[in-house]
């Protein structure tokens, strides 16, 4: 073996360093493992009703019940599937409308008041995202009753956070030069926005809206669980009547819808960018 002539001082420094790093890494892993162990103990080991599971075959049999299809449900699926799709579309459009003012308030460079309205805009963005869509749906069901309308409102509210945040960030990142040019020709506030800012942000905003619409199809599929219309309601009913084949049918319909949304948004995004 070849011998390498190196400064022994550096060698000992290096091995010191490496030993210390080894110990540090070991400690970090130990802490992570201990934490996960604590969580598993608290949630799975102590919190599961082990006596009800009744062995491996019981679990498999329970899951196996879902591998049948209740084809008779097909005719009942069409309307709710369509409704789910329409809820996602209307909810997204409504969300865009709500997002416009929020983005305007929450973009530091165009906000009408930096001290008052900017924080308000930012707060609305966080509020929209921190409340789960099901919780929004519950709120709106209690406000406007059962049906698709509370679902649409819930989806719109839940969409505002993401769309307005991305839009506000796009506005903050624009190139100020065209804005200056439109001001210089005597354009009004709206024209500055429409000619100076909009052309710069619309590809980002459109891509975001398409993405959000894609997500909203998933969201509107579960809205019915709390009575806010769409496939979720059907799912809930099948589950309550222990019709496992029917549950599978609904899940299949949701899957189809999501694949459809995925395909459409793929082509839309391509068209935009």
């Amino acid at each position, binding site marked *: 073996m070849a011998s390498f002539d190196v400064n022994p001082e550096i060698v000992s420094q290096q091995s010191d360093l490496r030993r210390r790093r080894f110990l540090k890494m070991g400690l970090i892993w130990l802490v992570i493992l201990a934490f996960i162990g604590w969580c598993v103990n608290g949630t799975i080991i102590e919190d599961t009703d082990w006596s009800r599971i009744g062995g491996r075959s019981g679990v498999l049999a329970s899951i196996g019940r879902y591998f049948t299809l209740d084809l008779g449900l097909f005719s009942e699926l069409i309307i709710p599937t369509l409704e789910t799709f329409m809820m996602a579309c209307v909810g997204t459009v409504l969300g865009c409308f709500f997002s416009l003012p929020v983005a305007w308030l929450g973009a530091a460079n165009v906000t009408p008041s930096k001290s008052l309205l900017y924080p308000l805009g930012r707060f609305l963005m966080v509020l929209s995202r921190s409340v789960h869509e099901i919780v929004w749906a519950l709120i709106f069901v209690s406000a406007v009753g059962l049906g698709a309308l509370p679902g649409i409102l819930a989806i719109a509210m839940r969409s505002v956070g993401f769309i307005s945040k991305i839009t506000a960030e796009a506005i903050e990142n624009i190139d100020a*030069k065209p804005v*200056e*040019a439109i001001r*210089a*020709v005597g354009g009004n506030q*709206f024209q500055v926005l429409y000619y100076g800012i909009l*052309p710069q942000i619309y590809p980002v905003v459109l891509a975001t809206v398409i993405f959000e619409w894609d997500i909203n199809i998933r969201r509107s599929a579960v809205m019915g669980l709390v009575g806010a219309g769409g496939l979720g309601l059907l799912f809930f009913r099948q589950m309550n009547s222990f019709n496992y084949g029917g549950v599978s049918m609904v899940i299949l319909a949701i899957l189809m819808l999501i694949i459809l949304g995925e395909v459409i948004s793929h082509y839309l995004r391509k068209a935009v960018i």
Partner: protein
Amino acid sequence: MAVLTVKDLKVRYSAKGPEILKGIDFEVMGDDFLAIIGPSGAGKSTLIRCVNRLVEPTGGTINLLGEDVCALNPRQLRNLRRNVGMIFQEFNLINRMSVMDNVLSGRLGYTGTLRSVFRAFSQTDVNQALYYLDRVGLSDHINKRADELSGGQRQRVGIARALMQRPKLLLLDEPTSALDPKISREVMALIRDIALELNVPTLCNIHDVQLAKEFCNRIIGLQDGYKKFDGATETLRDADLEDIYAMEVL
């Protein structure tokens, strides 16, 4: 008759920040092609942006076309800006729009909000845009996107846009700094010819002294917010230049 009279102009960008312009006086006459020269950071861009209040002056008065610029309310200011064509160092075009739409945007000050949403400019505006696009030599590029053009071509779009305003004063902010020497000269010549043709006085920031001497009839030298020189181009001596650019040596 002076088109533009600036008196004791002072600017600072923030209350505690340094004073960028420290009391500037000058006039632009109806037939002037006036150059403002000076080292980087002398306040040239700030000065030119005060004229149409893209930058708010903190002191002094500006009289443009008989109006006290600093006293105007937002609507009056927009009306005044329509009369002032501006050409920028980096062209300031709307990149995602076509050359034609960029040129038409010069008429936005005269176009109602609703019409501007649909880019429904009047037929006169469209004809005028086509005329000026031809004048600046871009007839073959009308429907291209602005970001497909070369630097020199983009500046020509900027010139056509400014002309669409039928300006009574042209402001040029380093119109050639982003261009190579040959194109710079072409662009300057084009602007000068058009300014002569339309009889528009022009105020031009420029750091290239050679170009200033070649194209401008009068020169103002700025240094660190003070006016160091103001006179006809022929009277600018090397000693004056050394004085103006003295600080840049450091």
